[in-house]
């Protein structure tokens, strides 16, 4: 069983309580009615699907109900860190050097 650290509940909880919610840090354009179809496609549909480190939104749906963000490895499924919605995207180098392991799943 994978344990995920919820930054709102402040403890590791079972993966069974969580649901993934796609890529994190995708800002909705302020001028959404003015952008071209191509720009909308880029914003709405196109994702990198990287092999390795990815920043994702997760929801503790069967716990506190909150959305939060996570840095996860798509190959090993390891959660490097989790952080509250609205907090800045953590530094990639710091994550890969293991300087941020709050929320690392065991």
């Amino acid at each position, binding site marked *: 069983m994978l344990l995920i650290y919820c930054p*709102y*509940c402040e403890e590791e909880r*079972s993966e*069974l*309580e969580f649901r993934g919610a796609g890529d994190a840090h995708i800002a909705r354009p302020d001028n959404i009615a003015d952008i071209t179809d191509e720009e909308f496609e880029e914003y709405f549909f196109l994702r990198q699907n990287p092999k390795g480190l990815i920043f994702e939104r997760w929801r503790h749906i*069967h716990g*506190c109900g*909150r959305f939060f963000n996570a840095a996860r490895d798509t190959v090993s499924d390891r959660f490097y860190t989790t952080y509250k919605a609205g907090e800045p995207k953590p530094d990639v180098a710091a994550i890969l050097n293991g300087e941020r392991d709050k929320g690392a799943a065991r």
Partner: protein
Amino acid sequence: MADLATATRKAALTARGGFTDVILTPAPAASRLSLRAGTDALAGLSAALGVTLPSRPKTSASSGKRHALWLGPDEWLVIDESEADLMAASATSGTLHSAVDVSHRNVAVIVSGPGAEVAINSGCPQDLSLAIFPVGACSRTILGKVEIVLLRIAEDTFRVECWRSFSPYVFGMLSEGAADAGH
């Protein structure tokens, strides 16, 4: 060499009988409030409800037969075992909040006895060891396939809240867990 384990054959209805280490009791009717509010409303709501809404994760507060359970950063489940009118109480707070009467949406099972922890953990991943989940601790989590809200009311007693239509499933899961708790 690993030791051989031999499973005990259980009859289909074994778990419907009495258990040695666990007692399962349907809780009496209660009034319940699903409460959402920002931090600026907490003082007013706490005063109106007569119980301090907790702001720390996994904690609850009680005043007599009334309990306020932290479910999320802006969400509480308020339970009144004397069926008091919680909607009327919260309406006097003068604060901006959302209160929904869920008295009949939920039912509760009281799980007590030395095997209570084991019975619940048979289908629930929440760490229920006393150091991590002390008396008064609460959490929304899952039991088998359904969502529950747990409240530890004594070292060996839990209140398990679930949605009404899920209650036969919850009682059945707890019964199976209770039957296993003695082994």
